[in-house]
């Protein structure tokens, strides 16, 4: 019989323990809450799948989920093409490369709550630079606390400002890995700029773009801090995204059971979409 060296598992063990403590065990307590009702004092009553049913049938959940998908869709449809465009326009050699890279990286280095606070002040109608400019220079009424449209435009713009750089950096990494010979061959083959993009640059960026879209999907789908600081979910419920709603149910209303059920559904949706997308994008590579 063939003996196998299984010592490699010892190297994985620390990670396993770490993940167990920061993800698996907390998640199990969530599972625990999601099927029971409690009124405190550690007294639990079995509730079965009632909470799941309640969440899945609730209009409030549907609305928040709809807003969540809309938000993620909007930022992806803006950030991915914009990120690619900026990466294409960036220089490949010379003095400006590090300047561009560092400038690009700056927004990503700012803590999330600071980003929210910055944009909050930036857009204040009377003293914020952007708010003042719109209201008093252009004469366009712009007030996040009153207009849902203004609130949406602001959170989308904020996310684009904060995270397009990630797409840029990943796309740029894909672009610089293309050998010069490809561009030279395309020139000789008489390829147009569009053909060069379509048949050389885009295929070579495919893998990094898959990662970029995946990261941006997961991050934006779970976004909490920035819109919470910026709009607090308002005006009304117009910018109450899933995570904000979840926190309201869990910590505002202290409905731990429904909140636990909702977070598990939330988690399953994120996982399912990510898995579907990744499988579809890498399907060709496997064959």
């Amino acid at each position, binding site marked *: 019989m063939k003996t196998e060296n299984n010592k490699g598992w010892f190297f994985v063990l620390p990670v396993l323990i770490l993940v167990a403590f920061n993800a698996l065990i907390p998640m199990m307590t969530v599972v625990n809450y999601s099927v029971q009702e409690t009124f405190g004092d550690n007294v639990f009553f079995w509730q079965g799948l009632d909470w799941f049913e309640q969440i899945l049938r609730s209009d409030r959940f549907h609305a928040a989920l709809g807003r969540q998908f809309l938000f993620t869709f909007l930022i992806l449809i803006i950030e991915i093409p914009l990120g690619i465009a900026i990466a294409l326009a960036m220089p490949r050699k010379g003095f400006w490369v590090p300047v561009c890279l560092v400038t690009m990286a700056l927004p990503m280095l700012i803590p999330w709550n600071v980003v929210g606070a910055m944009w909050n002040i930036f857009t204040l109608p009377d003293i914020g630079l952007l708010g003042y400019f719109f209201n008093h220079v252009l004469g366009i009424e712009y007030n996040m606390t009153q207009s849902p449209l203004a609130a949406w435009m602001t959170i989308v713009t904020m996310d684009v400002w904060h995270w397009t750089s990630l797409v840029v950096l990943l796309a740029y990494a894909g672009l610089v890995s293309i050998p010069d010979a490809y561009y030279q061959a395309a020139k000789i*083959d008489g*390829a147009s700029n569009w053909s060069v993009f379509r048949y*050389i640059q885009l*295929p070579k960026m495919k893998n990094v773009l898959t990662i970029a879209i995946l990261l941006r999907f997961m991050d934006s789908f779970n976004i909490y801090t920035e819109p919470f600081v910026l709009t607090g979910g308002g005006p009304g419920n117009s910018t109450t995204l899933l995570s904000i709603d979840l926190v309201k149910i869990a910590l505002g209303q202290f409905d731990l059971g429904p909140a636990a059920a909702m977070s598990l559904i939330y988690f399953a949706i994120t996982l399912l979409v990510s898995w579907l997308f990744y499988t579809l994008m890498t399907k060709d590579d496997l064959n």
Partner: protein
Amino acid sequence: MAKITLSKLRHSYYPNPSSPSDYALKEIDLDWSDGGAYALLGPSGCGKSTLLNIISGLLVPSEGRILFDGQDVTELTPDKRNIAQVFQFPVIYDTMTVYDNLAFPLRNRGRDEETVRARVMAIAEMLEVTDMLDQKAAGLSPDNKQKISMGRGLVREDVNVVMFDEPLTVIDPHLKWKLRSKLKELHQRVKATMIYVTHDQTEALTFADQVVVMQDGEVVQIGTPVELFERPAHTFVGHFIGSPGMNVLPCEVQGGQALLAGQAVPLEGAITGTPSGKTEIGVRPEFVTIGDAGLAATVTKVSDLGRHMVVECDLAGARVNAVVNGSAPDKGGTVHLSFRPDQTRLYVDGWIATQAQEAAA
């Protein structure tokens, strides 16, 4: 197809070149006739790729002109010059099928699908890739990818020149030979002017009718493979071509005779001019024989190459290789070397300085 003329071509990668060493190419004048197979041979960094990129139009030379059939194309872009180039690493369009890859240069030039189809099928047959036409090009082996790159070059029937920039670098040794003979065959079939850049003498000598040997941005010699082997115009050519390369032995010249370790060595012909500077005798290992009489030398190394043996000797401080068939002398022993006079030449400052046999006769 076109005749290619390079006139007073110089190129420097620096904006303001001052000394000759600033130039990657130092004054090149060349004429390549229509339909010929040429090789640019030289070590890495000798300027051969620079020259190739200038001909293809990827690089604009600092000075001089390039003419295709007498027309100045120096300022034209690669696609306007109507040339094809095959690169060191196979360039294929991953997402396209083999068919679409081959059709790409034609479709970009707006040919109708019928013409495209006819050309692609013809080229595919020539390259023996017909059965792969429907496959995604990304999944091909390196040698097939390189074939597709070549195919994209050959698919346009009006192409002026096809250039190869060390195209066999990434190909497995046993396939190199196959692809090389395929190339030769292709040249005979399509009759396009072809320029092949390499640092591999075997590739250059098997492919080309005429080989241009370059060193440090200069053309050292142009000739047929036989000429380069038999009568190198420069010690560099002698050394670079042949395995092992030509023996180059420092000598003295007195009264029209070359003296090696005090003994006169017969040369192929009379010495031209009055030699001044570094004088050397050049003779290929194939023409050095070990016998009872001749120059005394000590054997320092014997390598058995299977087909023959290479005996390395020390002759008054200089190293001499001799190719020996049959039994070789023992290491450390003293032998006597003689050089075949008609293959023994004098080089002054690297350049040949003896009259050729025909000229002397």
